[in-house]
């Protein structure tokens, strides 16, 4: 049973200060458009993430507008400048007002 809103953030294992790293985020969400019907021919109501915030340390570094045109169980990846050891947080909010949060720590390799 999928857990709606579960957010996974993938960053490289080994990061050094100043690296430009690839951040990949996976969120479990149906992203229903509202145009499909269920087995009883009833319309499945729209249910999708529409607002995404990416926080790194104290700052909001990116914001994404999403629609139901993003595929089910959304995936997005982008590049981040790893300038500080801090938490990287991905907060998404859907059209029903639910808020989902996932977080990972950016830590620099010691050697």
């Amino acid at each position, binding site marked *: 049973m999928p857990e709606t809103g579960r957010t996974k953030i993938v960053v490289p294992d080994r990061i050094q200060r100043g690296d*430009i*790293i*690839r951040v*990949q985020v996976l969120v479990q969400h149906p992203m229903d*458009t*509202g*145009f*499909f019907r269920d087995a009883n021919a009833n319309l499945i109501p729209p249910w999708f993430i529409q607002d995404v915030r990416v926080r*790194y340390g104290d*700052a*909001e*570094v*990116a*914001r*994404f*507008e*999403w*629609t*139901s*045109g*993003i*595929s*089910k169980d*959304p*995936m*997005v*990846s*982008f*590049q*981040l*400048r790893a*300038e500080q050891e801090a938490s990287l947080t991905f907060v998404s909010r859907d059209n029903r007002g639910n808020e989902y949060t996932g977080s990972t720590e950016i830590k620099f390799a010691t050697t």
Partner: protein
Amino acid sequence: MTDSIERRRFLQAFGILGLAAAIEGVSGASKRLPAAVRLSRPGPDDPPIPNEAVQKIYDERFQGRTIQHGKVTLDMPTMAEDGRYVPVVIESELPMAADQYVKSVFLIVDHNPDPLVTAFHFTPAIGPVKLQTRIKMKRTSWIRAIAETSTGELWADYLKVETTLNGCG
């Protein structure tokens, strides 16, 4: 006599059309190559605005400013078998520095019910634009990737993607 002139005219006209068709066939074939194989893309003219929904996005987000073609690259399969999951890669050589950076990237699917599928808004803390995501497509459509810089410039790339299975409902 009249017949032979008619015939010659017909052949001349048809010959030109035939040549045009042959050229179109060649360029059409090159467009169907997988994105990864295309080394240089044919410079398509900017696709015309197809409907009011896309016009509204242009009015609201770009306010009639000039959109130049280049400096941003849109990569997608030119034939998307499943409209529910269509991979998208957007890259740009535009600088990401404190004084000049890519402020936003817009992804528009002309013939989707809600054409502005996603918009990314960045700060300079984000690295050079290299974005991946998966989108839905209702049917065959032009796709527009438009980057807006902090200085107000707009750069775009366009691809026509063919879709058979409706991913939007």
